[in-house]
């Protein structure tokens, strides 16, 4: 598994790093920690330049290095798959036409990359996800200053990413994973990701199929049967429920309280129609809930 975790330099990222570390420990994932700027960069904060690469106290640099340190601390020194075992020399172009021979640590079993992409945070995350394809993007559920709405970049990533997105709410251990689907295009990696979430939180699992005029489409019916049996074979109790499409918003809003809501999004899925930016705000309330978009 490849995880991309976005660390907003203006916020405390300790809880998102803890969740990413726990998931990475269970899955032995390759992880990229991506430092991003906050949406509204304060006037006092200088823009990040090439010279800042040597700066110890630039907020982006500080935040990223703290995040990296916290991530590695979760694993300790012994037996960490991210511990480097060798030091090698690599020539790096520090300026146009100027190369420096740097000592670089390599040799870990799994990769931990620490990267910065200054500028628009939403674009930064999506660009990094395309540059280095990942299986899961992790962002924090953080409200915009002074209001209950999600920050724009979080909404942008949820709506526009090509891969699954996990929006983590601070200090909220979900009791149940509620996974909704209305199409049959459910990938094996997404099934396994739900499996991992159930294990991570020791949570119950509920699979909700969307009906249209009280009828469940044949392909969805068939796929739900396969999904339920897949989890049964993996010793996971998966409860099933049907939800009428017209009641989805009510159901999802209720389901999101105290639980992790997971949505299997398809191209023509009712769920994607439901996922208008304003609906996302309403669904997730005031920085309360975790959300998993499965693609």
């Amino acid at each position: 598994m490849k995880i991309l975790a976005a660390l907003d330099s203006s916020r405390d990222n300790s809880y998102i790093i803890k969740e990413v570390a726990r998931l990475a420990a269970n899955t032995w994932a390759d992880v990229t920690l991506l430092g991003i700027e906050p949406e509204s960069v304060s006037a006092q904060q200088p823009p990040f330049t090439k010279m800042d690469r040597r700066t110890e106290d630039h907020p982006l640099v500080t935040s990223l290095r703290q995040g990296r340190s916290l991530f590695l601390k979760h694993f300790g020194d012994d037996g960490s798959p991210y511990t480097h075992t060798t030091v090698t020399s690599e020539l790096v172009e520090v300026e146009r036409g100027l190369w420096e021979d740097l000592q670089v640590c390599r040799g870990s079993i799994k990769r931990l990359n620490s990267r910065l992409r200054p500028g628009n945070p939403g674009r930064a995350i999506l660009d990094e996800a395309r540059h280095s394809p990942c299986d899961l993007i992790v962002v924090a559920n953080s409200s915009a200053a002074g209001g209950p709405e999600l920050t724009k970049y979080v909404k942008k990533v949820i709506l526009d990413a090509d891969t699954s997105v996990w929006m983590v709410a601070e200090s909220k251990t979900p009791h149940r994973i509620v996974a909704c689907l209305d199409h049959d295009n459910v990938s094996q990696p997404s099934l396994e990701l739900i499996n991992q979430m159930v294990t991570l939180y020791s949570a119950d699992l509920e699979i909700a199929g969307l009906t249209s005029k009280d009828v469940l489409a044949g392909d969805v019916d068939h796929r739900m049967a396969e999904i339920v049996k897949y989890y049964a074979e993996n010793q996971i109790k998966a409860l099933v429920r049907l939800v009428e499409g017209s009641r989805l918003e009510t159901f999802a809003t209720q389901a999101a309280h105290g639980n992790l809501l997971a949505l299997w999004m398809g191209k023509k899925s009712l769920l994607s129609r439901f996922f208008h930016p304003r609906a996302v705000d309403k669904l997730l309330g005031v920085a309360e809930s975790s959300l998993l978009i499965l693609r």
Partner: protein
Amino acid sequence: MIKALVSVYPDLASVIAMNYVCRLSRIFDMEIQPIFVKELEEANKAPAVGWVRQTWENSLLDVEQEAMNKLIEAEKTEYARLASLQVYSGNRQEAILDNLLQGGYDLFVEGSVSRFEKSELLRRTRSRLYQNLPCPAIIARNLIDFDKVLIVIGEMSPAAALLPRLTRLFAGASLRFDLLHCTIIEAGPLEPVHPQHGLFDEADDLLAAVGWQPENRIALQGTPKDLGSRIGEYSMVATTLPAHPERHGGLLELLSNTPLPVLFCRP
């Protein structure tokens, strides 16, 4: 040996039912007879009349029968003693009732998927099939491993009506169970009821006569929602089938608030 009739249809609920009854057969000695009843299309939906229509209906039936056989084959386990699928055309409830009566079955099983905001249980228990059941019935709602059963008694589920049928069904088997005496209220907190003298006496006498012993006796008072949430850790709940479901005193609402398979015994 428990002789069970299982209603199947090419849908998710039937996958749950077949899978569930095959799991039960690991624990109880069972013979399983799947039955598929194809309800006739209305005349104005048929593409034609006469032999053309008959051919069309037969080919639809063949397709569905093949789907049924695949479903049964997929759910079959090494423990399940499965008979060949029986296929009928006609009124589903009548066909199943006839088979239950003529076949001398001990148990009827069908699947169901819970719905948000709607209770399937009220609709089913009011049906002609359920109001005339000659044997207990299991509505299998989820794939839950069989471990411990909760037997619900109380004013809406008298022990004298429930326990003889239950003990006869599982005679000879080793069943782990708790007894719950519940008092359903419209509002108020969920709280234990201090067992009055004699609250479990009738149940204890009936169970002792066949050598059964509950692991726990629990007396609770609460709303259907709270009681339903409390009993989620069991693998099945057994109770009587309300004679008048529309005046069920909250029992069906309680059962709707749990994801558990339900075993109904007609009083």
